């Protein structure tokens, strides 16, 4: 055993959490005795994982993208209206949805980097603009229908040797994840993290911070469009399909140990965070806990994960002082 997986800092905890949740699922749910149960879980988690990967690019470079939920809704509603049940329109509408995602990301990125508006505000504004525009266009009731070809990516499965039927969405997810990992290991990916960590240093060493940030937003938009295609395929047209997804994606990224404000965290951990979140909700449901608790759980996770990250090693030292730091001088007890 000479090869060891190279895990970035902060990846291990979320993988442990994920493993515990999967074991929990195996104990509680009879459907998780065999691979098909986990494939179904992956299939359902795929859109969120894809969104979380996109959100990771933006967060790690020091921004936020709050517009992805509205972008997903827009993608699904636009696709349904344009396809309107006709199979022949599928291909160009898919390309158009992807293009729309890139365009929205481009606008987010340009306004953030050129007009120097904080990304939180830009993307919040984009969320409202998209929401309003979609409402105006549809009047609240989406029209049209998706074709079977479009829905195949979110709903269908393909025969793979050994594994049997594997959902398309799982294959797409794996492809996106592999591409993201390769990208983050390359020079541009490393520069992206560095830009989130210390913008001035990157700039002084010749990095083009604006271009990196713009790229992050474009990738986030593109991945949101892919998530829209998966979600639309999974559950068909709905004007609520993207509601709250931006916060879910941010929760997932934070759960993956990625530092809000940028500069630290791995894309694998962000993806694992998204999968953990979906597994957690599935587990809670199997245990009979009300679905209404989902948002509360999300809130607790965000606060706890950020608190853990910002206190960092301090908390760990205080909780386990002896093991970690045997020579640490005694602290006066305050209580």
């Amino acid at each position, binding site marked *: 055993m000479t090869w060891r997986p190279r895990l970035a800092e902060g990846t291990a905890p979320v993988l442990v959490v994920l493993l515990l949740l999967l074991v929990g699922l195996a104990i509680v*749910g*009879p*459907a*998780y005795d065999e691979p098909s*149960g986990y494939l*179904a879980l992956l299939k*359902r988690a795929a859109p969120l994982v894809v969104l979380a990967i996109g959100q990771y690019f933006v967060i790690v470079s020091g921004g936020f993208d709050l517009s992805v939920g509205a972008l997903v809704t827009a993608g699904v509603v636009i696709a349904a209206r344009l396809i309107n049940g006709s199979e022949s329109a599928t291909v160009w509408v898919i390309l158009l949805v992807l293009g729309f995602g890139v365009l929205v990301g481009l606008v987010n990125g340009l306004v953030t980097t050129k007009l120097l508006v904080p990304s939180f505000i830009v993307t919040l504004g984009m969320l409202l603009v998209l929401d309003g525009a979609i*409402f105006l266009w549809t*009047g*609240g*009731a*989406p*029209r*049209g*229908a998706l074709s079977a070809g479009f829905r195949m990516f979110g*709903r269908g499965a393909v025969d793979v040797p050994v594994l049997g039927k594997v959902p398309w969405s799982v294959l797409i997810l794996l492809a996106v994840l592999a591409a993201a990992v390769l990208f983050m290991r390359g020079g541009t990916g490393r520069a992206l993290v560095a830009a989130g960590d210390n913008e001035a240093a990157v700039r002084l060493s010749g990095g083009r911070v604006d271009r990196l940030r713009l790229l992050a937003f474009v990738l986030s938009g593109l991945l949101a469009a892919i998530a829209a295609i998966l*979600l639309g395929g*999974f*559950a*068909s*047209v*709905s004007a*609520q*399909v993207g*509601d709250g997804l931006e916060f879910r994606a941010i929760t997932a990224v934070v759960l993956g140990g990625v530092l809000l404000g940028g500069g630290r965290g791995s894309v694998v951990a962000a993806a694992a965070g998204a999968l953990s979140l979906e597994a957690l909700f*599935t587990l809670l*449901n*199997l245990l*009979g*806990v*009300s*679905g*209404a*608790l989902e948002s509360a*759980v999300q809130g607790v996770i965000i606060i706890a994960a950020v608190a853990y990250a910002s206190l960092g090693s301090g908390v760990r030292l205080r909780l386990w002082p002896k093991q970690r730091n045997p020579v640490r001088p005694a602290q006066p*007890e*305050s*209580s």
Partner: protein
Amino acid sequence: MTRKWAIVVVAGALALAGCSSDLPDDKAAPSGGSASSSGGSPSSDASKSKFFDQAEYDRQLAFRNATPEGPDGKPWEQMLQPEMVDTAKFAKPGGNYTLCFSNASVDNPWRQVGYKTMQQEVKLHPEITKFTVLDAEAKDDKQISDIQSLSGQNCSAIIISPNTTATLTPAVEQACKTGVPVIVFDRGVNTDCQATFIHPIGGFAFGADGAEFLKEKVKPGGKVLALRILPGVDVLEQRWAAANEIFAGSGLKVVGVEFTDGDAAKTKGIVTDYIQREGQIDGVWMDAGATAVAAVEAFQDAGVDVPAIVGEDQQDFLRLWADEGLTAVAPTYPTYQWRTPIIAALKVLKGEQVPKEWVLPQPRITGDKVKEYVKQDMPPLHYAMCGCEDMPGYPGPWK
């Protein structure tokens, strides 16, 4: 040392609070939470919903079997057990009417189909020269100011579809004080100053239609999953209260009561979870059919037979039902009720009698009739019970 213990205690308390999902049952009641259903916990023999009203329940169930008065084949002009009242004081012969309409919102397909139907109804009557509409965008405060603004315009009659009951009551009363006839439809208000209040039979009958169907089609002891949109909305609470009442004495096992937010993806996820958790689901009850197709797809994608299911009269569900030969029923909250306020307003302005409470028939679509309601060329979210097929211009505006 003490600090360490404090952490343990706090952590323990948090964990406990997180585990006990049933806590908010009674405390949530004043803020409109649901009293009977606490998330996923089985509640077939749960206590009655606080929205359950035995007298109203009996009244609505009796309406279902009553013979409506009015022209055959035009249910929007029919009325159930009407108590006619005189409207001579509002009479304003001569035509040239300005009708004003304060709409709660047009933010869902049901209201869209209804509103389009109403607009076409207005076109049928040349004596209406102006039709002024203000959309409250589902905001109480906007609707209150909308109604005030309409009171100041030269309306011959004011039609109101209230956004919520209690908050809009004073606004409706103010509108009545202007002396113009006020017509309320869909949701009601707590006053009787309006010339007439138009509505289909109601939520109890809707919920009962679906629950009775499952009681008939699902074998005793069968597992039923109840899917609701959200708690606290009286129309929807009534539907569930009636279903809960019927399930309680049915021998069916309600394995879950879940809120879907009307979201197809969430619905599909919930149903998939329940298929895994229970192994088999024998019936699905829904308080509104918008996500029925997603529920059916969850069974199809899991590779199991689709059980008896309660939907609604939207085209996507009706098509799926007819194509797949589902065991299903579609209670309806008919969109043709949007025609009636216009008809009623003209009756009042001509001094004709109208019922104080105009109760419209509320049909349900059953398996033997479903093919009649499937309209292949209509959009998937179109409501079949619009009563609009014979209107001039159909189907253009509804597409």
